């Protein structure tokens, strides 16, 4: 079991690197969707000891929302914003991947110090979660386009969700659904905003959203 969990966590980490290193928007959206699907799988595997119907249903809903619904939404936003299909990073892809490596090292270090107290399903849980969060933050700050920032946000959420899965056996259903709903609506609203930005500015370059500042 541990091996399967480890494999999923590694795949999550690798999709994180794919996202950091790929220059195509479509590839990024696909990567984040794959992460979502992996998360659903992870939730299933983690609780495979005592499988309950609610657990399975929740995992399936999560996988559908994060793996299918949100990527479809993002693809639509990309099409409607009628943007070029390039990622347009502020730092080079090599630097992104290197920074990702640094973040991986950092999350491993944190993982050594923050250990899950009870029944450690896999000691890679905390590092994988923290790496995904940090990589999401990196994508948010190092990419120009508004839509890539949404992708980064989604990745960050995925990282938090990985951690949630580690303690999943203990979270009530309502909360899980609420969190999922929030993320969904959040991305939905951001998608609308991206659309408006592209119509208003003829681009979705968030760097040019800079007219508001302090004129002293």
């Amino acid at each position: 079991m541990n091996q399967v969990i480890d494999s999923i966590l590694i795949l999550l980490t690798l999709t994180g690197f794919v996202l950091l290193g790929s220059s195509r928007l479509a590839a990024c959206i696909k990567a984040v969707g794959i992460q979502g699907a992996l998360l659903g799988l992870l939730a299933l595997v983690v609780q495979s000891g005592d499988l309950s119907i609610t657990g399975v249903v929740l995992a399936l809903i999560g996988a559908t929302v994060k793996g299918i619904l949100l990527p479809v939404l993002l693809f639509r936003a990309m099409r409607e914003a009628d943007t070029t299909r390039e990622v347009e990073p502020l730092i080079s892809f090599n630097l992104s991947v290197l920074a990702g490596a640094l973040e991986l090292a950092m999350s491993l270090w944190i993982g050594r110090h923050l250990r899950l107290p009870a029944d450690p399903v896999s000691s890679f849980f905390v590092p994988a979660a923290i790496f995904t969060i940090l990589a999401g933050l990196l994508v948010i700050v190092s990419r120009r386009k508004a839509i890539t920032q949404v992708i980064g946000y989604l990745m960050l959420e995925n990282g938090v969700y990985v951690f949630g899965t580690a303690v999943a056996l203990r979270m009530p259903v309502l909360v899980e659904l609420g969190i999922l709903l929030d993320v969904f609506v959040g991305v939905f609203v951001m998608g609308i905003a991206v659309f408006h930005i592209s119509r208003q500015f003829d681009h979705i370059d968030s760097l040019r959203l800079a007219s508001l500042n302090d004129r002293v």
Partner: protein
Amino acid sequence: MKPQSAFPLLLAIALAPMVQGIINRTKAIVAGRAGQPLMQPYLDLAKLLRKGAVYSETASWVFRTAPAVGLSAIICAGALIPFAAFPSLTHFGGDLVLLGYLLALGRFAIVLGALDTGSSFEGMGASREIAFAALAEAPLFLALAAIVRETGSLSLTPALGAVSINVWNHAAPSMCLTIGALLIVFLTENARIPVDDPTTHLELTMIHEVMVLDHSGPDFAIVQYSAALKMWFLGAIIVAIAVPWHVGNALADAACALAGIAALGIVTGLIEASMARLRLLRVPTLLLTAAMLSALAFVMVAK
């Protein structure tokens, strides 16, 4: 030194060009062509050996000795690599570091030869080759480090020999990562797609081929043959990790490993048939990713 420890090296010397043939055949079949015979690389080598060599007026003895130095470095490297149950010709603690340096020495000779011609194309190829090779060393060593950490041995023969079903049972994820990283190193070191296109006809886009453009006749045959040997040895390392079954019978194991090498050739052919060459600027990202893979493998093993 036992007599059978010469076996891996002899096998490599005899069969190395075949891998090239398998790759070409696979590509041809995927593209819907009949393709050249499997033995074509041998025929090419024979043809080159029969011809005379032409040397540029500006080239010095460095250019003439480069192929020989390259070949001997590769053969020395091959003496460290086991094949299936057969141990390598010689092995000692830390020989995997020597392996890295011997590979580098071979490349150094060829690069010097390329620079010696004074041609701008060859200089360009040499600089690219060195840049990517330097980046490829990180994943290679990290991957080997993961294996060392897992098996607890600093020498290639015992380390690769210890990769068994058992190891896979408790460290499958990191083994997969190691293989992934080594595969990328394999493609880079051997100038295959997606890093380099061995069949390109445009010098500007070449990496390895442009570097050996001035070699001709027997010299070129030696260069080609050392490239084939290098491919075989790196492939043997990958296969030793990827094919962990040990039947007990040395010959059966060797047959297994040979099938593995053939499979590796087919995989390479499939990759070449299905992918395009990466832009030069993107190659470092690929190699960095390979380094990440092997670093991750190392961490997973070390935890």
